[in-house]
C-alpha cells in the first residue's frame, strides 16, 4: 500500500488512527498496541503476504536474542549470542538481497558457472534488518530496555516507518510506546502531523513524479547504449537529483506526519541536503538516520580499531589519518552503496562518496598542518557539492554499467552539438527554479520546528535564510493554505507511482 494512494489516505490511515484511539480508550494501551501491530502487518502484507511470516520470524528471533542479551552478564556467551544474532541478520539480508550478486562475482572470478535461484526480495528488508541489528547491539550494551514482545513488534513493524524508514533506534521508540499521553488523542498532534503529511504528499506528487517523466527516457536511452547528448544527460542528472530528494524526503515527511498523528515522534531524515557546503555536510543532512547508523556501527568501530593499531606501530600522523579516517570512510561508504542495492553501480556510488569524503578529510588535515587560512566561499562550496552529488547520482540511477558509461561520456562530451536544447528549455528553467526554491525555502523540519524541537540540530540550523524563517502556525492562513495544497496533491496523485526508495 502506497502512502500516495486513495486507499491509504481515505481508508487505511483514518481507520487505523481511529481504531488506535478507540481501543486505547476502551481496551487500554496494550489493545491499542496490538491493533497497530496488526494493521502494520496488513500494511506490509498488502504488497506480498508471503513475506509477513518472514518478518515475524525475524522479529521473534531478534526479540529472543535481545531479551537474553539484556538479562545476561556481559560474558563470552553474551558476546557469542550477539555475534550469532548479527550474523543471522546479515545472512538473512545476504540471502535475499546479495546472494545473486556475490555468486555472479564468484562465477566471474573463478570462471565457473554458478547459479543461485532468484528469490523475491522482501520489501523493506534492509530497513528492518538494520534496525534489529542496532537493537541487538544496544541490548548487549544494556542501552535497550525490554518493553515486552508486543511493543518490540511495534518498534519493528510500525507502519509509517516500516517500508523506507527513517531507521529508528529501540531507545528512541520504546519510551514513546510507554508514554500514556501517546494513547490520548491530541488535536494539536493531528494538526501538525497532517500538515507534515501534506507537505510530503505535495513534494512527491507535485515535484518528484512529474520530474520522473523527464528522467526515465534519458536513462532508458543510455541503458540501450544510445547517446542522449551533452545537454540532455546533464539535465536528466540534475532532474534526477531533485526527483530522488523530493521523492524520498516526501515519503519521510509522510511517515513522520502519519506517526505524529498518533503522537509518535520519528527522527528527521533530511535537512536541506542541497544547502550543504561540503560533501561531509551533505551526508549529515541526507538520509540522516542511515548516516547515523553507518557512523555508529561501521565507521566508528573500524576507525577506533585502526587508530589503536596505528598508534601501536608509532606510525606517522599521515598513516594514522589514512588508517583512522580514510580507510574506514571508504569501507563505510561501500556498505552504504551496497545497502542501496546489489549491483556494481551502487558499489561505485558508495566508493565515489567514500573517496570524496576522504579527499575532504585529507584537505582539512593539510590545511591544519600548513596552517592554510584559505576558505572556499560558501556559494562555491554549495555549488561544488551539488555538482559532485549530481555526478554521483548518475551511478545511483543508471540501470547498469553500460548506462553509466554512456551517461558519463555524454556529460563529458563538451564539443557535442547541443541537441534537444530548445525542446527542453522549459524543463531546464523549471529545474533551476526548483533548485532556487530548495535553497531559499525552509525545509519541513524548520517549518514545523517549534513542534519538534527535540529533533532540531543547532549546527544545521545555522544555514537559515530570511525566507527559511517562515514557520507553520496554527492559524486560519495555514489551515486554508495546507487544505488547498492537500486537495491539489490528492487530485494530481497518480495512485500507481511508487517511491524510489521502495527497492531498498
Amino acid at each position, binding site marked *: 500500500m502506497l502512502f500516495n494512494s*486513495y*486507499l491509504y489516505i*481515505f*481508508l487505511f490511515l483514518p481507520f487505523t488512527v481511529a481504531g488506535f484511539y478507540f481501543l486505547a480508550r476502551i481496551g487500554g494501551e496494550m489493545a491499542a498496541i496490538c491493533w497497530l501491530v496488526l494493521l502494520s502487518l496488513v500494511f506490509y502484507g498488502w504488497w506480498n503476504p508471503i513475506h509477513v511470516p518472514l518478518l515475524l520470524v525475524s522479529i521473534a528471533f531478534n526479540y529472543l536474542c535481545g531479551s537474553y542479551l539484556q538479562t545476561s552478564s556481559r560474558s563470552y556467551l553474551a558476546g557469542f549470542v550477539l555475534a550469532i544474532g548479527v550474523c543471522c541478520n546479515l545472512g538473512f539480508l545476504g540471502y535475499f538481497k546479495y546472494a545473486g550478486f556475490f555468486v555472479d562475482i564468484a562465477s566471474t572470478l573463478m570462471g565457473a558457472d554458478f547459479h543461485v535461484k532468484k528469490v523475491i526480495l522482501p520489501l523493506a528488508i534492509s530497513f528492518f534488518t538494520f534496525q534489529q541489528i542496532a537493537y541487538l547491539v544496544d541490548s548487549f550494551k544494556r542501552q535497550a530496555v525490554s518493553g515486552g514482545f508486543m511493543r518490540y513488534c511495534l518498534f519493528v513493524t510500525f507502519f509509517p516507518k516500516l517500508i523506507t524508514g527513517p531507521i529508528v533506534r529501540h531507545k528512541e521508540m520504546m519510551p514513546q510506546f510507554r508514554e500514556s499521553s501517546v494513547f490520548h488523542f491530541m*488535536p494539536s498532534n*493531528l*494538526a501538525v502531523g*497532517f500538515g507534515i503529511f501534506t507537505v510530503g504528499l505535495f513534494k512527491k506528487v507535485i515535484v518528484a513524479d512529474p520530474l520522473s517523466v523527464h528522467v526515465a527516457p534519458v536513462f532508458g536511452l543510455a541503458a540501450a547504449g544510445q547517446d542522449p547528448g551533452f545537454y540532455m544527460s546533464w539535465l536528466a542528472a540534475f532532474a534526477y537529483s531533485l526527483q530522488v530528494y523530493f521523492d524520498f524526503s516526501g515519503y519521510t515527511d509522510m511517515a513522520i506526519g502519519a506517526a505524529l498523528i498518533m503522537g509518535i515522534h520519528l527522527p528527521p531524515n533530511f535537512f536541506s541536503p542541497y544547502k550543504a557546503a561540503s560533501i561531509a555536510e551533505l551526508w549529515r543532512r541526507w538520509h540522516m538516520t542511515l548516516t547515523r547508523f553507518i557512523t555508529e556501527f561501521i565507521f566508528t568501530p573500524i576507525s577506533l580499531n585502526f587508530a589503536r593499531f596505528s598508534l601501536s606501530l608509532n606510525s606517522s600522523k599521515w598513516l594514522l589519518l589514512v588508517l583512522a579516517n580514510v580507510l574506514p570512510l571508504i569501507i563505510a561508504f561501500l556498505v552504504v552503496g551496497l545497502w542501496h542495492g546489489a549491483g556494481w553501480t551502487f558499489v561505485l556510488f558508495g566508493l565515489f562518496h567514500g573517496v570524496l569524503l576522504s579527499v575532504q578529510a585529507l584537505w582539512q588535515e593539510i590545511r591544519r598542518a600548513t596552517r592554510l587560512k584559505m576558505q572556499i566561499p560558501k556559494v562555491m562550496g554549495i555549488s561544488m557539492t551539488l555538482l559532485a552529488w549530481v555526478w554521483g547520482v548518475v551511478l545511483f540511477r543508471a540501470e547498469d554499467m553500460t548506462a553509466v558509461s554512456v551517461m558519463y561520456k555524454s556529460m563529458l562530451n563538451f564539443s557535442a552539438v547541443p541537441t534537444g536544447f530548445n525542446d527542453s528549455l522549459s524543463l531546464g528553467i523549471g529545474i533551476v527554479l526548483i533548485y532556487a526554491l530548495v535553497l531559499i525555502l525552509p525545509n519541513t523540519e524548520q517549518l514545523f520546528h517549534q513542534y519538534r524541537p527535540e529533533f532540531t540540530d543547532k549546527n544545521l540550523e545555522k544555514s537559515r535564510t530570511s525566507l527559511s524563517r517562515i514557520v507553520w502556525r*496554527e*492559524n*486560519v492562513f*495555514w*489551515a*486554508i493554505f*495546507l*487544505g*488547498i495544497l*492537500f*486537495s491539489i496533491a*490528492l*487530485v*494530481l*496523485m*497518480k*495512485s*500507481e507511482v511508487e517511491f524510489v526508495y521502495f527497492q531498498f
Partner: protein
Amino acid sequence: MYLQIQFAVIALLLLGLASFNYAVDPYGIYSPEKSYTFSKHKTEFFLKEQIIKPYRVSDMQLDTVILGMSQVGLGYDENHPYFSDKSVYNFSMAGASMYMVYRAFQHASIESELQSVFLDLNMLSFNEYDTFVVRNDNSVVSRTFEGLLAAKEDGSRNWMASFRQLTHIPLFLLSQQAIRDSLATIKMQGGLHEGWHLNSKGGWRGSTLAPGQSQGKRFLNIAKYLVNGYLGGPTVTHPFSIYKEDGSPSRAFEYYERLLDEAYRNNVNVTLVLSPNHFYFYEALDSLGLETMFLDWKRKMVLINAEVASRHGRTPFAVWDFAHYSPLTTEAVPAKGDKARRMKWFYDPLHFTRVAGDLVLDQVYLNRQGSGVEVTAESLDGVLEMQRQKKQQFQREHVELIEQLKAMFSEFAK
C-alpha cells in the same frame, strides 16, 4: 478551530470536484440510463473499458453478453430485435486478447446467471507475442482489470473485487484524469464531429470520421498500421503469430477452449462468429505470408468447439464464418481524394459498421439470407475449399486492384 477550517476547505474542494465528476459521469458508471444534455455522450472511454465495464457488469443482472474486440463494440447493436427481450451488455474491449475475453466471460458468469453469449472471434486476439493481448501483462491497466473481476482465473469468486471496486471510486471522482475526462466530455457534446462514445449497454456509437475527412485515406492509414505496426514490420518486437516458438498453438487457444468448456458445463449457449474483415485484411495477410496461418486459425476455431462439445456429449455451438471474400467484405474503398463518400459496411479493414453488424445478427439469429456460412467439423474442408475458389474468382476479376494492393502492402511492410 484550525482543524475545522482545514477539513472544511478540503471537504469543500473535494466534494465540489466529486459532485462535478459525478454529475458529468464521464464513464457512464453511476447513472448510465440518465442522460444530461451536457454529458449525454460518454466520449472518454477509449482504453478504459477494462476498468469501466467490469463495474457496469457487476451492477447489472444480465442473461446475455456480447464479447470480443473493438469491432464488437462498434459493429454490433445491443438493441437489435433479437436482443429486445434480453438483458444484454456489450462487454467488448479494444485490443482484447482471448485471455481478456475469457476473463470477461468469467466475470459476467459469476455476477449474473448467463444464458447466452455472442462471441465474435478475430485472429488478432490469438497473437502469442503481444503480452497485453495474450494474457495478464502486469501493467497498471491489466492489474486493475484483474483486481476488479469478480471471478478468479480458477473460476472461484474473487471476494476482494467488490472491495477494490469501492476503493476505485475516488479514482473516478477525484483524479486528474477524471476531471480531464469530464471537461472533455462536456466539450465534445453536440460538436460537429460527435466522435465515438459509449452507450449504457457497453456499445460504441458515433461516427469515426469527421465531416470532410477522407475515408479512403483513413482506411489506408489503418491498413498501414496493421501491416507495419502490428502484424510485422520494424516496429514490432516479434512478428504476429498464433504459434509459440516451438510451433505449438498460442496460449490464447487454451483460453478459448476453457471458455467453451465452462459454457457447455453451465448450459450457456454460445454463438461463435468469425468476424467479417474487409478483404484488404485478407490481402495483407497474403502479402505477409500469413494466409496458411489464417486458415489454420479458422480450422482450430471449429475443431476445438467440436472437440469440447463431444467431451460434454453435446451438439457443438453454431460457428458462423463471415471471414471470407463475400459481397459484404469486398466493398469498394473510396479514393484517397474523395472526402464525401462513406462506406456502407466498413470504417476500416477491421471495423465494420452497425449496418454490417445487423446483417450478421439477422442471419445468425433471425435466419435471414446473408454472406455468412455455418461451419461444422464435417463441413469445414468443403467450406474452406469453396471460399478459396471465391477468393480466386474475385482476384481474377480484379487483377489490377489486387496487384496494386500487393505492391502497397509490400511497401508498408518495409
